[in-house]
């Protein structure tokens, strides 16, 4: 539905976005993930038509935003990092203004404003001046503005930044709800945010796409197989590691963090498709050691993220 093709943007000598391409399919929620200064905001501004790209193009159903900005913008809703609010307007008059310039037909403006206020939970502050409402409300009014013209695609730049935990949960639930009817692109540097709301993830680092996949896919790709944490007591130094290494399907045994004297702790990595837990249990039992812990680590988006961005740094340092 929305296609980003080889988009590049320079700020002076700095390349903020460097040949980024990905597709946003109809109906999906895509997370744009990256550390601060990865180029997320710049990329979203380009996609929303706020900034021109230096190279490449953004296409909505094949329509180039640079060539027909008005037609494309009519179908996009955009929430910038700082909600674009007028402090001297009331919430309702602000949303009515937004509905005017976003091309909502005159007869449905008031009902649209009421509807989005209801959905974003700001109806109770409809008559208050925006300067007097809390940060959580400001963020939600910003989201209401992005939704007012019922756009096909919602572009949300860090929608939960600066909110308290309860507000974060509310906004996430709202985004989840929206993702059932709309196509959503959401940026964040918080990993749990993306894992809570998105189907697929684009990881952006230093202006480049480091990976595009589903969360499970990313984890699988990186890990290959499972990683096990094993703690044993009663083995001579080095003995246990050697014993685990000899198990079929085990790729490597790494000593893990320090533990109490007399016991050892390892991270055992297995090849894809092998589950070495049973063998480890039998091996320790047969050797007369005591198995204190045996658990399978599920690789988190966090690990994927750190690994991918660290790899990028390592390769760019070379």
């Amino acid at each position, binding site marked *: 539905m929305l296609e980003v093709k080889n988009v590049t943007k320079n700020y002076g000598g700095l390349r903020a976005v460097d040949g980024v391409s990905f597709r946003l399919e109809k109906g999906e929620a895509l997370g744009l993930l990256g550390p601060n200064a990865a180029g997320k905001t710049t990329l979203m501004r380009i996609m929303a038509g706020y*900034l021109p790209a230096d190279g490449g193009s953004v296409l909505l159903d094949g329509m180039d935003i640079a060539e027909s900005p008005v037609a494309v913008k009519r179908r996009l809703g955009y929430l910038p990092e700082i909600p674009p*609010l007028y402090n001297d307007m009331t919430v309702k008059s602000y949303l009515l203004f937004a509905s005017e*310039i976003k091309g909502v037909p005159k007869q449905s403006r008031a009902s649209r404003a009421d509807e989005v206020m209801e959905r974003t939970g700001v109806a109770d502050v409809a008559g208050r001046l925006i300067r007097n409402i809390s940060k959580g409300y400001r963020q939600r009014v910003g989201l209401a503005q992005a939704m007012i013209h019922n756009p096909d695609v919602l572009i949300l730049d860090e929608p939960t930044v600066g909110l308290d935990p309860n507000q974060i949960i509310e906004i996430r639930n709202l985004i989840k709800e929206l993702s059932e009817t709309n196509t959503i692109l959401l940026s964040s540097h918080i990993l749990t945010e993306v894992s809570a709301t998105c189907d697929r993830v684009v990881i952006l680092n230093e202006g480049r796409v480091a990976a595009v996949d589903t969360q499970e896919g990313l984890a699988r790709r990186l890990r290959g197989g499972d990683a096990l944490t094993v703690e044993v007591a009663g083995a001579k130094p080095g003995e246990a590691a050697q014993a685990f290494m000899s198990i079929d399907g085990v790729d490597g045994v790494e000593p893990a963090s320090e533990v109490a004297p007399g016991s050892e702790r390892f991270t055992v990595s297995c090849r894809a498709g092998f589950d070495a837990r049973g063998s480890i249990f039998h091996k320790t039992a047969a050797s007369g050691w005591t198995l204190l812990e045996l658990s399978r680590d599920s690789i988190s988006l966090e690990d994927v993220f750190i690994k991918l961005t660290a790899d990028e740094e390592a390769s760019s340092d070379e």
Partner: protein
Amino acid sequence: MSNAYYIFKKDVKSLFMSPLAYVVMAVFFCVSSFLLVAGMEEASMRGAFGLIATMLIFIMPFLTMRSFAEEFASGTDELLMTSPVTSGQLVAGKFMAVMALAGAIIALSGQYALIIGIYGDPDWGPALTGYAGLLLLSGALASLGVYCSSLTRSQPAAAVSAFGLALLLIVIRAAQSAVDALAASFTGSAAAEAVAKALSSVLEAAGVLDHYFDFEKGVIDSTHVVYYVAFILLFLFFTARRLDSKRF
């Protein structure tokens, strides 16, 4: 064009809701009334028009400084520029909003005509053309100010640059004698002389206040009207280009 109207409506509301508009109006009427009464010699609008024109040069930068600079500073330009609104509609709406306020001030200065009309017998022809001239002059100052406001996110910087540019455009004729002297020294080269002469005539015609004086004399000269309309359109075009250079 309805998009321009929505922008206009929003800006007018915000202008009239801010204390700035009322402070500017208060200053405008205090100073101009004082000067008018203190310097009045006859029951005619001539003196009043000169005063209002001078005061406009001082107050217009304060009416235009917010126009775009405030949107940039508060991030609300991200709403305007990602909405299906063209740069031209945006600029037109903003310009018209400033003109609504300037027009209100000029209309309120009609009280001077009323008072002079009650106590004397002024010539009404020049009074009408004088108001037409004031509107065109304020339009030129407004377009210049809106342009300056589109260059920065700092309102003071927008006001100072608009005021400075307006002053420069008022005194620009002063450079003419220097250019003429230069032209006289180019006896050898016909081309250089022609360039200097052309520059001299441009300087003669460029003064933003020079085109105003005929209006208060009761003369509507199409040259002056064309000058102001072209001036306004040029700076509004510059502003739209400025916005386009920031986005699509």
